[in-house]
């Protein structure tokens, strides 16, 4: 058989590619349900990590159903809001927002050609008083996403980030380096400002003891400038989408603010930041 003739070559490669594609499509379809279940459990363990129910490694020791049970037990309320901070609907059963759902909502928040509808962003309130919200954006090589939890005084209680294909040892530190995620704890998001949160190059402001001061700035990752910038942009975009929800739900501020110049005037809007400056 002459295997070097052109027609044979074209037909042969076509057949091989079609057969391989068919096998892969079949396998992918038949395993999809199992993979989705794993992904859901993973998302739940990431949210629980962010909400402070243990480290990721501890939560990963639980099996899938135990993770789901723990979530069902600890979640107080889960609902969808719009960009005005109004509750649209409750989330039924154990519904979480993994990377695929977040991707769709990310397009909706940003608008443009890929927009499929009005943004519907989830809020998860846990029994320990923390509110978990997701973030999603582009890293250097692929999507990055994560979950940030806020205490009732709107300081950040915890954060967990994940990525699809950031460089191991550099960009992948957003997921693998617990000390990076720990930097978020105790920081604040300035919801009233355009720059809600900052991951800065060259060092975040620190006090005399070398501890990061309570503001909206943390250190970027050395050697992972693009991933850090991507994460910064993702956090800014998503927390800005939650701004009205958080500002609206804030307890009325009865402390004098804005440097104490207008003691008698009641505060308007977010006085978190100003009180901070005052201190």
């Amino acid at each position, binding site marked *: *058989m002459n*295997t*070097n003739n052109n027609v*044979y*070559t074209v037909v*042969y*490669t076509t057949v*091989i*590619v079609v057969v*391989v594609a068919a*096998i*892969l499509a079949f*396998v*992918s379809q038949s*395993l999809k349900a*199992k*993979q989705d279940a*794993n992904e859901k*459990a*993973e998302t739940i363990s990431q949210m629980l990590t962010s909400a402070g129910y243990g480290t990721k490694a501890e939560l*990963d020791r639980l*099996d*899938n159903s135990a993770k789901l049970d723990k979530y069902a037990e600890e979640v107080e309320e889960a609902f969808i809001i719009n960009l005005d901070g109004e509750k649209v609907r409750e989330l039924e059963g154990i519904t979480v927002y993994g990377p695929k759902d977040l991707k769709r909502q990310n397009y909706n928040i940003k608008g443009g050609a890929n927009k499929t509808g009005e943004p519907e962003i989830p809020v998860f309130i846990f029994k320990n008083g923390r509110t978990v919200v997701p973030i999603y954006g582009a890293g250097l090589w692929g999507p990055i996403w994560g979950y940030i939890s806020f205490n009732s005084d709107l300081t950040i209680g915890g954060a967990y980030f994940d990525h699809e*294909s950031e460089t*191991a*040892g550099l960009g*992948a530190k957003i997921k693998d380096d617990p000390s990076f995620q720990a930097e978020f704890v105790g920081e604040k998001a300035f919801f009233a400002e355009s720059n809600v949160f900052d991951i800065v190059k060259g060092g975040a402001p620190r006090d005399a003891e070398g501890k990061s001061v309570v503001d909206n700035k943390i250190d970027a990752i050395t050697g992972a400038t693009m991933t850090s910038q991507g994460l910064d942009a993702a956090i800014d975009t998503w927390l800005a989408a939650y701004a009205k929800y958080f500002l609206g739900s804030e307890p009325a501020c009865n402390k004098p603010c804005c440097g104490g110049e207008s003691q008698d005037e009641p505060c308007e809007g977010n006085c978190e930041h100003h009180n901070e400056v005052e201190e």
Partner: protein
Amino acid sequence: MDAKLKETILNPIFKGNPITVLVLGICSSLAVTVTLKGALVMALSVIVVCGISSLILSLLRKTIPGRVRIIVQLVVVAMMVILVDQILKSFEATYAIDKQLSVYIGLIITNCIVMGRIEAFALGNKPWPSFLDGIANGAGYGLILIIVAFFRELLGSGTLFGVDILNRFGYVPNNLVILPPFALILLGCIVWVQRSIQKDLQE
């Protein structure tokens, strides 16, 4: 079992080891050897991919058009790699490992051992020896991976398979061992040991 077949199986394990002698697959051996569990899953994945790709391509060897043979090899190896990745993602027990190995499972396709053995052996030999050659080369790769991972996990985290071994005696994990350069140092030591046993490799 005849001598030639025995040689096919035993040669890649020690005398012609793909990592220490042929110096193939170095990149992934630095990346996935932080934990023994990761190294073990990676080793098994490479064994499966290498063995089955060699078998398939050896069966097809007389029909493959010479001018596109590399492309046909790539398609078959890519299929095997995706299958392995999909299967690892589907089981609860392996999902976390797959996440930990992240891109490196997908990058098995760029592992020179797989394509190298297909090109050098499977295309010129019968299916059964080709299959064994693939398995043996995967195993030779896996053996080095596991040796390196053993030392890196033991010294870098004080554990083996996640079970505490040294920490209970007050051992402080050495962070250098976790970093990829240490894997290169260990690999160098393994090559050193091997070449002092096997004098004919010395230049």
